[in-house]
């Protein structure tokens, strides 16, 4: 099946529609809440939480024997929260730093989860098939009920976010100040963290524990490059997330043997790369262009100033001088002289140059700017 076929089938095939809707909603909620994670400098907390969720899934299966994703995700939620609070406990109460705490919880919980998963696989009566999908995600396994759950949780998160928009924003920017205004910052903090954990758990089935954090970060990191407005950033992140989800699922479904998670991550990664390079205000490309232009302008101004110094010695500013005498000054080339002429600051006749009135005024301005600084 090719990608075009996939999108054609979308209109007729009910299952495909369910899956596509699911990944779109998932991408949107991750982009939305991921923006908070990125702005709170908690990017890697998401990575730790998603890995920490694995033993919860396995334990939920071991205890209930259920394959129903609702039950398994409940387990994931619990163990994700346990991991989160243990990380906080380690950073608050010991001298270990947050990077150590994150890496430790991430790898140890994941290891425990893998221990349980391999244990389950060896059980004779376990129809363990399906737990594997939580590693790298398999969107094809999404059921209508899963998607419904996603939509409900996304709607609730959206509602909570809009309701506490003002509080979320001020806490993200300046937590201590928020406290002095009389807001219960602990409550807002726990609320945001809980929503982030919820989004992560929701995505495990589609993207998998290993790569979940990237879906949280990438849309937000890409969106941040295009706007300086928080609401637009979140909206944009939600859109990028949704598009990555849908495209990634379509690509992985059109190929054999491809988990959804890695593909969605790469699609989102392309968005990030594109944004990093081509964003007009922050992007690397335009920043470099601006930098070069500034440097060229500086050079030009320097030459002009040097000429201004020479011209000052004559009563008539437009008195012609030999180009030769500029040799003492290394900052000019034929090209830069040409540019100066194009600006109308000087005129060139053969081996002579002369300053124009316009050029004189310009040089004076630069001089004044410099001395006022």
């Amino acid at each position, binding site marked *: 099946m090719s990608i075009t076929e996939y999108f054609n089938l979308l209109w007729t095939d009910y299952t495909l529609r369910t899956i596509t809707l699911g990944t779109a909603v998932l991408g949107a909620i991750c982009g939305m809440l991921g923006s908070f994670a990125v702005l709170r400098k908690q990017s890697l907390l998401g990575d730790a939480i998603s890995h920490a969720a694995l033993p919860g899934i396995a334990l939920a299966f071991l205890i209930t024997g259920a394959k129903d994703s609702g039950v398994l995700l409940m387990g994931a939620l619990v163990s994700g929260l346990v991991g989160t609070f243990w990380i906080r406990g380690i950073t608050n109460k010991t001298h270990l730093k947050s990077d150590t705490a994150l890496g430790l919880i991430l790898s140890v919980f994941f290891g425990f989860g893998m221990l349980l998963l391999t244990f389950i696989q060896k059980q004779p009566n376990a129809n363990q098939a399906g737990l594997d999908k939580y590693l790298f995600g398999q969107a094809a396994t999404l059921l209508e009920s899963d998607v419904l759950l996603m939509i409900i949780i996304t709607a609730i998160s959206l509602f909570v976010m809009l309701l506490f928009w003002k509080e979320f924003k001020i806490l993200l920017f300046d937590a*201590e100040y928020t406290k*002095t205004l009389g807001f219960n910052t602990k409550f807002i903090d726990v609320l945001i963290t809980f929503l982030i954990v919820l989004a992560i758990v929701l995505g495990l089935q589609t993207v998998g524990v290993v790569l979940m954090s990237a879906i949280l970060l990438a849309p937000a990191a890409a969106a941040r490059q295009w706007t300086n407005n928080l609401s637009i950033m979140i909206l944009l992140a939600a859109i990028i997330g949704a598009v990555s989800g849908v495209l990634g699922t379509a690509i992985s479904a059109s190929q054999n043997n491809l988990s959804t998670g890695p593909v969605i991550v790469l699609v989102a990664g392309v968005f990030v790369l594109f944004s990093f390079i081509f964003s007009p205000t922050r992007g690397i490309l335009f920043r470099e262009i601006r930098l070069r232009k500034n440097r060229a302008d500086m050079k030009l101004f320097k030459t002009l100033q040097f000429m201004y110094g020479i011209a000052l010695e004559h009563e008539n500013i437009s008195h012609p001088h030999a180009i030769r005498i500029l040799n003492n000054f290394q900052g000019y080339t034929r090209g830069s002289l040409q540019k100066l002429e194009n600006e109308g600051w000087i005129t060139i006749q053969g081996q002579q140059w002369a300053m124009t009135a316009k050029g004189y005024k310009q040089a004076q301005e630069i001089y004044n700017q410099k001395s006022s600084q």
Partner: protein
Amino acid sequence: MEQKIAVQIDDLTVAYNYKPVLWDIDLTVPEGVLMAIVGPNGAGKSTLIKTILGIIKPIAGSVSIYGEAYSKQRKLVAYVPQKGSVDWDFPTTALDVVMMGTYGSLGWIRRPGQKEKKIALEAMEKVGMLAYKARQISQLSGGQQQRVFLARALAQDASIYFMDEPLQGVDATTEIAIINILKELRKSGKTVIVVHHDLQTVPEYFDWVTFLNVKKIATGPVKEIFNDDNLTQTYGINYKVAVNK
């Protein structure tokens, strides 16, 4: 005439992780003064302000604002935190940040409207930042960022202003502008309490001063107590040279 007391601190002891940084502080700040808190690094100046504002919980002692607990008098108090305490790359505009000053009076959930916007714009005008209202905050210079913070506090329309090093890292023009605003606040009967680093400028800028180094060394009018004796006690070395300019 009996002067009203704006801030009253009794027997305040504060500890970070149970290691005390402020010991048994008694402090009374009369209404309408422009007060500097001075002391060496690690003397607990910021901690004192943060404790008054309820950001840090003390181990012992109490703070009252116009005779009541801080939690009841929140709307009378405005705060300018240290500039370095926030992420200036946060996606928001200068006007948005100033608007945050009105969030306290709005309370939970209610959104700022036209009235709050007007308050914020007026505050920005006072600090000379109106032209930059739509600017993203990372594109402001250090001095401009500080003015935005000041405008945010002005938007709180309080009676007492607490400022944590508002002159740190600002250019000379901004410094004068900020000091003029502080003096204006005092003229209109407000109380202004500032953590300050530059001892040279204390007599020029302030009329009240508190010397702090883990314990309170002295507090009172600059004219009376800003002397070598107190400076030496606070900083531990002889400060004669530094002040007699």
